[in-house]
């Protein structure tokens, strides 16, 4: 039962999520935090922070960790398989068909039309993280870390791993 839920929680985001790994994040959040309540918003944020600080695709890192957290190695296997196998099988099985339609306006339209939905879900998630942080760390810490992170990431294109490490150091020293 838990395996079936894990399968669905990762199969659905990955079969509708056009736009690569990042597009899948808010869809996975809707399942893992919203629908099944396996994680709190804070735990999801921590997973995402570490996921962004490490290399390799974000979708499989999240699936592997959440699956393991909920149901051990078997859970990790189910969640990662649900993430990787369906679209890979489609690609291997329908290659000729996809090749003929790769420039079709309808196919282009599919990923274009999904983008605004993903964008609003990402915006909602951003707002959720803001409220969560105001709630747990207060306005002053949220403001300091948020502004510092925005400057480091957007202005100086600093590597996410260093920004996360900086926040960890700040949290260890000043929030406790």
């Amino acid at each position, binding site marked *: 039962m838990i395996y079936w839920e894990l399968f669905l929680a990762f199969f659905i985001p990955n079969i509708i999520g056009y736009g690569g*790994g990042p597009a899948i994040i808010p869809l996975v959040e809707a399942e893992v935090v919203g629908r099944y309540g396996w994680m709190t918003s804070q735990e999801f944020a921590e997973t*995402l922070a570490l996921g962004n600080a490490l*290399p390799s695709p974000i979708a499989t890192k999240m699936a592997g960790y959440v699956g393991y957290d909920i149901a051990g190695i078997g859970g990790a296997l189910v969640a990662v398989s649900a993430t990787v196998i369906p679209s890979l099988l489609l690609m291997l099985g329908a290659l000729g068909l996809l090749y003929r339609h790769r420039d079709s306006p309808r*196919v282009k339209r599919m990923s274009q039309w999904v983008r605004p939905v993903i964008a609003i879900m990402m915006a909602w998630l951003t707002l959720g993280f803001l409220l969560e942080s105001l709630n747990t760390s207060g306005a002053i810490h949220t403001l300091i870390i*948020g502004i510092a992170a925005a400057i480091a990431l957007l202005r100086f294109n600093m590597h996410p791993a260093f920004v996360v490490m900086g926040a960890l150091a700040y949290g260890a*020293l000043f929030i406790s």
Partner: protein
Amino acid sequence: MKQSALFWAFLRVGLLGFGGGPAMIPLVRAEVVTRHKWLTDEEFADVLAIGNTLPGPIATKMPGYIGYRVGGISGCIAAVIAVIVPMIVAMIVMLGIFSRYRDVAWIRGMGQAVIPVVMIMMGQLTWDFFDKSQAALGWLASALMAVIAGGLIYWLGVHPGWVISAILLTALLRPTAKKRVEGSA
């Protein structure tokens, strides 16, 4: 020994590929086209274009497909495992240690401090997706679709899967005749 070459090539991609799937494409190209010459430049571009017609992470579709093409089923498995497994293990170990000491005050502080950073990253992605969306569909259509979808999902509680499936089906089935009218926008 194609399988072991595939494994090492995609292990390098997985360990050096920071910033999620789309950022890893140039690394895949460097291994597959430049170093090992498994695909030509045009073939690589085709595989990428085909991968983008499908949902799901691009960074596992490409290794899976290229692995299959070069080394059959075992090549496919070797390539996918090489890309994803090392960092899944790293996540489980690091977050496992972190959760065990969650009650220690300064560790809890670390967990809290990371939320605003994730907020900024998610804000950046939001902007990125909305910007790409307005470039393709225009401001008005993007904003309208976003507001309607947001209302359905967060106000009426419709599962995002239904909303997106409906959009995908409409995009696929609706005829594409009135191109000239939309071109003026």
